[in-house]
Protein backbone atom coordinates (compact mmCIF):
# COMPACT_ATOMS: atom_id res chain seq x y z
CA UNK A 1 0.00 0.00 0.00
CA UNK A 2 1.44 3.34 -0.99
CA UNK A 3 1.47 6.23 1.41
CA UNK A 4 1.93 9.94 1.36
CA UNK A 5 2.81 12.45 4.06
CA UNK A 6 1.60 16.04 3.74
CA UNK A 7 2.60 18.86 6.05
CA UNK A 8 0.01 21.58 6.37
CA UNK A 9 -1.50 23.85 8.92
CA UNK A 10 -5.12 24.85 9.22
CA UNK A 11 -6.68 27.41 11.53
CA UNK A 12 -10.13 26.50 10.28
CA UNK A 13 -11.15 22.91 11.06
CA UNK A 14 -14.00 23.06 8.53
CA UNK A 15 -11.60 24.00 5.72
CA UNK A 16 -9.37 21.18 6.94
CA UNK A 17 -12.35 18.82 6.79
CA UNK A 18 -13.14 19.90 3.21
CA UNK A 19 -9.53 19.29 2.19
CA UNK A 20 -9.50 15.80 3.80
CA UNK A 21 -12.69 14.96 1.90
CA UNK A 22 -11.18 16.22 -1.37
CA UNK A 23 -8.17 13.97 -0.71
CA UNK A 24 -10.49 11.04 0.12
CA UNK A 25 -12.44 11.66 -3.09
CA UNK A 26 -9.14 11.21 -4.96
CA UNK A 27 -8.36 8.01 -3.06
CA UNK A 28 -6.02 9.49 -0.44
CA UNK A 29 -7.38 8.33 2.91
CA UNK A 30 -6.16 9.96 6.10
CA UNK A 31 -4.86 7.31 8.49
CA UNK A 32 -2.96 9.42 11.02
CA UNK A 33 -2.58 13.02 12.09
CA UNK A 34 -0.14 14.71 14.41
CA UNK A 35 0.63 18.44 14.63
CA UNK A 36 0.52 19.60 11.03
CA UNK A 37 1.43 16.19 9.61
CA UNK A 38 -1.13 14.18 7.67
CA UNK A 39 -0.45 10.57 6.77
CA UNK A 40 -2.47 9.26 3.85
CA UNK A 41 -2.84 5.83 2.39
CA UNK A 42 -3.90 5.00 -1.13
CA UNK A 43 -7.33 3.37 -1.36
CA UNK A 44 -10.61 3.35 -3.18
CA UNK A 45 -11.61 6.88 -4.21
CA UNK A 46 -14.68 8.24 -2.45
CA UNK A 47 -14.94 5.32 0.00
CA UNK A 48 -14.90 7.45 3.18
CA UNK A 49 -16.34 10.74 4.38
CA UNK A 50 -14.25 12.51 7.04
CA UNK A 51 -15.33 14.75 9.91
CA UNK A 52 -13.31 16.52 12.58
CA UNK A 53 -14.63 16.98 16.10
CA UNK A 54 -13.22 18.75 19.15
CA UNK A 55 -14.12 16.28 21.90
CA UNK A 56 -15.50 17.48 25.24
CA UNK A 57 -13.02 15.25 27.07
CA UNK A 58 -9.58 13.79 26.32
CA UNK A 59 -9.90 10.83 23.91
CA UNK A 60 -8.14 8.53 26.38
CA UNK A 61 -10.23 9.49 29.40
CA UNK A 62 -13.12 7.21 30.42
CA UNK A 63 -15.74 9.59 29.02
CA UNK A 64 -13.72 10.09 25.83
CA UNK A 65 -13.30 6.36 25.28
CA UNK A 66 -17.02 5.79 25.92
CA UNK A 67 -17.94 8.42 23.34
CA UNK A 68 -15.60 7.02 20.69
CA UNK A 69 -16.95 3.50 21.37
CA UNK A 70 -20.49 4.85 20.93
CA UNK A 71 -19.49 6.41 17.60
CA UNK A 72 -17.91 3.14 16.52
CA UNK A 73 -21.25 1.42 17.22
CA UNK A 74 -22.83 3.73 14.65
CA UNK A 75 -20.22 2.95 12.00
CA UNK A 76 -17.92 5.90 12.70
CA UNK A 77 -14.22 5.12 12.94
CA UNK A 78 -11.82 7.29 14.92
CA UNK A 79 -8.90 7.38 12.51
CA UNK A 80 -6.66 9.50 14.70
CA UNK A 81 -6.83 11.76 17.72
CA UNK A 82 -4.60 14.69 18.53
CA UNK A 83 -5.05 16.42 21.89
CA UNK A 84 -8.87 16.66 22.04
CA UNK A 85 -9.28 16.71 18.26
CA UNK A 86 -10.71 13.55 16.71
CA UNK A 87 -10.39 12.69 13.02
CA UNK A 88 -13.42 10.57 12.20
CA UNK A 89 -14.66 8.83 9.10
CA UNK A 90 -17.66 6.81 7.94
CA UNK A 91 -18.28 4.82 4.79
CA UNK A 92 -19.72 7.11 2.10
CA UNK A 93 -22.13 4.28 1.19
CA UNK A 94 -23.87 4.84 4.57
CA UNK A 95 -25.17 8.19 3.26
CA UNK A 96 -24.45 11.82 4.14
CA UNK A 97 -22.32 11.97 7.28
CA UNK A 98 -22.93 14.74 9.81
CA UNK A 99 -22.03 14.45 13.49
CA UNK A 100 -24.58 17.06 14.52
CA UNK A 101 -28.14 17.15 13.25
CA UNK A 102 -29.65 20.01 15.22
CA UNK A 103 -28.81 23.65 15.93
CA UNK A 104 -28.32 23.04 19.65
CA UNK A 105 -25.54 20.48 19.25
CA UNK A 106 -23.87 22.42 16.42
CA UNK A 107 -23.78 25.54 18.61
CA UNK A 108 -22.38 23.49 21.52
CA UNK A 109 -19.57 22.18 19.32
CA UNK A 110 -18.70 25.63 17.89
CA UNK A 111 -18.70 27.06 21.43
CA UNK A 112 -16.27 24.35 22.51
CA UNK A 113 -13.88 25.25 19.67
CA UNK A 114 -14.38 28.95 20.42
CA UNK A 115 -13.50 28.31 24.09
CA UNK A 116 -10.25 26.57 23.09
CA UNK A 117 -9.30 29.38 20.68
CA UNK A 118 -10.02 32.04 23.29
CA UNK A 119 -7.67 30.34 25.76
CA UNK A 120 -4.92 29.93 23.15
CA UNK A 121 -5.37 33.53 21.98
CA UNK A 122 -5.04 34.78 25.56
CA UNK A 123 -1.85 32.71 25.99
CA UNK A 124 -0.42 34.16 22.76
CA UNK A 125 -1.19 37.73 23.85
CA UNK A 126 0.52 37.02 27.18
CA UNK A 127 3.52 35.51 25.34
CA UNK A 128 3.74 38.55 23.04
CA UNK A 129 3.61 40.84 26.09
CA UNK A 130 6.41 38.81 27.68
CA UNK A 131 8.54 39.14 24.52
CA UNK A 132 8.10 42.92 24.45
CA UNK A 133 9.03 43.30 28.11
CA UNK A 134 12.14 41.12 27.79
CA UNK A 135 13.16 42.78 24.48
CA UNK A 136 12.73 46.21 26.08
CA UNK A 137 14.86 45.28 29.10
CA UNK A 138 17.70 43.78 27.09
CA UNK A 139 17.46 46.47 24.46
CA UNK A 140 18.24 43.68 22.02
CA UNK A 141 16.64 42.45 18.85
CA UNK A 142 16.98 38.77 19.85
CA UNK A 143 13.28 38.51 20.50
CA UNK A 144 12.06 40.00 17.26
CA UNK A 145 11.73 36.59 15.61
CA UNK A 146 9.68 34.94 18.41
CA UNK A 147 7.61 38.12 18.65
CA UNK A 148 6.80 38.01 14.94
CA UNK A 149 5.89 34.31 15.24
CA UNK A 150 3.66 34.92 18.23
CA UNK A 151 2.02 37.89 16.50
CA UNK A 152 1.37 35.86 13.33
CA UNK A 153 -0.14 32.98 15.30
CA UNK A 154 -2.15 35.45 17.36
CA UNK A 155 -3.52 37.13 14.24
CA UNK A 156 -4.57 33.77 12.76
CA UNK A 157 -6.20 32.82 16.02
CA UNK A 158 -7.99 36.17 16.32
CA UNK A 159 -9.45 35.80 12.82
CA UNK A 160 -10.70 32.30 13.67
CA UNK A 161 -12.10 33.38 17.02
CA UNK A 162 -14.05 36.17 15.31
CA UNK A 163 -15.29 33.79 12.60
CA UNK A 164 -16.53 31.24 15.15
CA UNK A 165 -18.17 33.93 17.27
CA UNK A 166 -20.06 35.15 14.15
CA UNK A 167 -21.07 31.57 13.35
CA UNK A 168 -22.39 30.99 16.89
CA UNK A 169 -24.33 34.29 16.75
CA UNK A 170 -25.92 33.39 13.42
CA UNK A 171 -26.91 29.89 14.60
CA UNK A 172 -28.29 31.29 17.86
CA UNK A 173 -30.43 33.75 15.84
CA UNK A 174 -31.70 30.84 13.74
CA UNK A 175 -32.56 28.94 16.88
CA UNK A 176 -34.92 31.72 17.93
CA UNK A 177 -37.03 30.72 14.94
CA UNK A 178 -36.18 27.11 14.27
CA UNK A 179 -35.19 24.29 16.50
Amino acid at each position, binding site marked *: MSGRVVRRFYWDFEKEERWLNEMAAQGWQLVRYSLGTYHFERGEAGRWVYRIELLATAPRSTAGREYLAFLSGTGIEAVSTYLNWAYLRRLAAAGPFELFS*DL*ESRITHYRRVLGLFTVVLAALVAAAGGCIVVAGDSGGLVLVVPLVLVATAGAGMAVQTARLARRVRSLTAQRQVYE
Partner: protein
Amino acid sequence: MTVDERRPLTETIFYVLLSLGAPLHGYGIMQRVNGLTAGRVALGAGTLYGVLTNLTERGWIRPLTGAADERKKEYVITDAGRKAVAVELERLEELLRNGRHAVQEGWR
Protein backbone atom coordinates in the same frame (compact mmCIF):
# COMPACT_ATOMS: atom_id res chain seq x y z
CA MET B 1 -46.27 18.84 36.90
CA THR B 2 -43.35 21.24 37.02
CA VAL B 3 -43.04 24.24 34.71
CA ASP B 4 -40.06 22.56 33.07
CA GLU B 5 -42.18 19.62 31.94
CA ARG B 6 -44.57 21.95 30.14
CA ARG B 7 -41.89 23.32 27.84
CA PRO B 8 -41.87 22.17 24.21
CA LEU B 9 -39.61 19.23 23.45
CA THR B 10 -37.18 19.40 20.55
CA GLU B 11 -37.89 17.19 17.56
CA THR B 12 -34.75 15.18 18.32
CA ILE B 13 -35.82 14.52 21.93
CA PHE B 14 -39.39 13.69 20.92
CA TYR B 15 -38.35 11.12 18.33
CA VAL B 16 -35.67 9.55 20.51
CA LEU B 17 -38.31 9.04 23.24
CA LEU B 18 -40.80 7.64 20.69
CA SER B 19 -38.23 5.16 19.39
CA LEU B 20 -37.50 3.70 22.84
CA GLY B 21 -40.72 1.81 23.58
CA ALA B 22 -38.55 -1.29 23.24
CA PRO B 23 -34.81 -1.30 24.07
CA LEU B 24 -32.49 -0.06 21.33
CA HIS B 25 -28.82 0.89 21.11
CA GLY B 26 -27.56 4.10 19.50
CA TYR B 27 -27.44 2.86 15.93
CA GLY B 28 -30.86 1.23 16.35
CA ILE B 29 -32.33 4.57 17.48
CA MET B 30 -30.86 6.34 14.45
CA GLN B 31 -32.39 3.77 12.09
CA ARG B 32 -35.73 3.76 13.90
CA VAL B 33 -36.11 7.55 13.80
CA ASN B 34 -35.02 7.59 10.17
CA GLY B 35 -37.70 5.01 9.38
CA LEU B 36 -40.43 6.79 11.40
CA THR B 37 -39.83 10.02 9.47
CA ALA B 38 -39.30 8.38 6.06
CA GLY B 39 -35.68 9.59 6.01
CA ARG B 40 -36.43 13.20 6.95
CA VAL B 41 -34.71 13.07 10.36
CA ALA B 42 -31.17 11.70 10.17
CA LEU B 43 -29.78 11.93 13.72
CA GLY B 44 -26.11 12.78 13.95
CA ALA B 45 -24.22 10.44 16.28
CA GLY B 46 -22.75 13.38 18.21
CA THR B 47 -26.19 14.90 18.69
CA LEU B 48 -27.70 11.57 19.73
CA TYR B 49 -24.99 10.89 22.32
CA GLY B 50 -25.66 14.24 24.00
CA VAL B 51 -29.41 13.58 23.97
CA LEU B 52 -29.03 10.09 25.48
CA THR B 53 -26.83 11.47 28.27
CA ASN B 54 -29.28 14.31 28.94
CA LEU B 55 -32.41 12.12 28.92
CA THR B 56 -30.74 9.55 31.19
CA GLU B 57 -29.85 12.30 33.69
CA ARG B 58 -33.47 13.50 33.53
CA GLY B 59 -34.72 9.97 34.16
CA TRP B 60 -36.83 9.92 30.97
CA ILE B 61 -34.88 6.96 29.62
CA ARG B 62 -32.59 4.48 31.30
CA PRO B 63 -29.72 2.32 30.08
CA LEU B 64 -30.22 -1.41 30.45
CA THR B 65 -27.69 -2.86 32.82
CA GLY B 66 -25.27 -5.55 31.75
CA ALA B 67 -23.84 -3.95 28.63
CA ALA B 68 -20.37 -2.77 29.61
CA ASP B 69 -19.61 -2.18 25.93
CA GLU B 70 -20.81 1.31 24.92
CA ARG B 71 -21.38 0.01 21.38
CA LYS B 72 -24.06 -2.37 22.58
CA LYS B 73 -25.56 -0.30 25.39
CA GLU B 74 -29.33 -0.27 25.04
CA TYR B 75 -31.78 2.32 26.33
CA VAL B 76 -35.50 2.16 27.10
CA ILE B 77 -38.14 4.78 27.93
CA THR B 78 -39.23 5.20 31.59
CA ASP B 79 -42.65 6.15 33.02
CA ALA B 80 -41.43 9.75 33.39
CA GLY B 81 -40.44 9.69 29.70
CA ARG B 82 -43.86 8.37 28.67
CA LYS B 83 -45.47 11.16 30.68
CA ALA B 84 -43.29 13.77 28.96
CA VAL B 85 -44.44 12.44 25.57
CA ALA B 86 -48.09 12.57 26.68
CA VAL B 87 -47.73 16.20 27.82
CA GLU B 88 -46.02 17.07 24.54
CA LEU B 89 -48.81 15.41 22.54
CA GLU B 90 -51.38 17.63 24.25
CA ARG B 91 -49.37 20.68 23.29
CA LEU B 92 -48.93 19.47 19.70
CA GLU B 93 -52.67 18.81 19.45
CA GLU B 94 -53.35 22.35 20.57
CA LEU B 95 -50.92 23.65 17.92
CA LEU B 96 -52.63 21.56 15.25
CA ARG B 97 -56.11 22.62 16.34
CA ASN B 98 -55.27 26.32 16.35
CA GLY B 99 -53.17 26.09 13.19
CA ARG B 100 -55.84 24.25 11.20
CA HIS B 101 -58.49 26.62 12.48
CA ALA B 102 -56.52 29.69 11.32
CA VAL B 103 -55.78 28.21 7.90
CA GLN B 104 -59.32 26.92 7.31
CA GLU B 105 -60.91 30.17 8.41
CA GLY B 106 -58.72 32.08 5.98
CA TRP B 107 -56.66 33.83 8.70
CA ARG B 108 -59.58 35.89 10.01
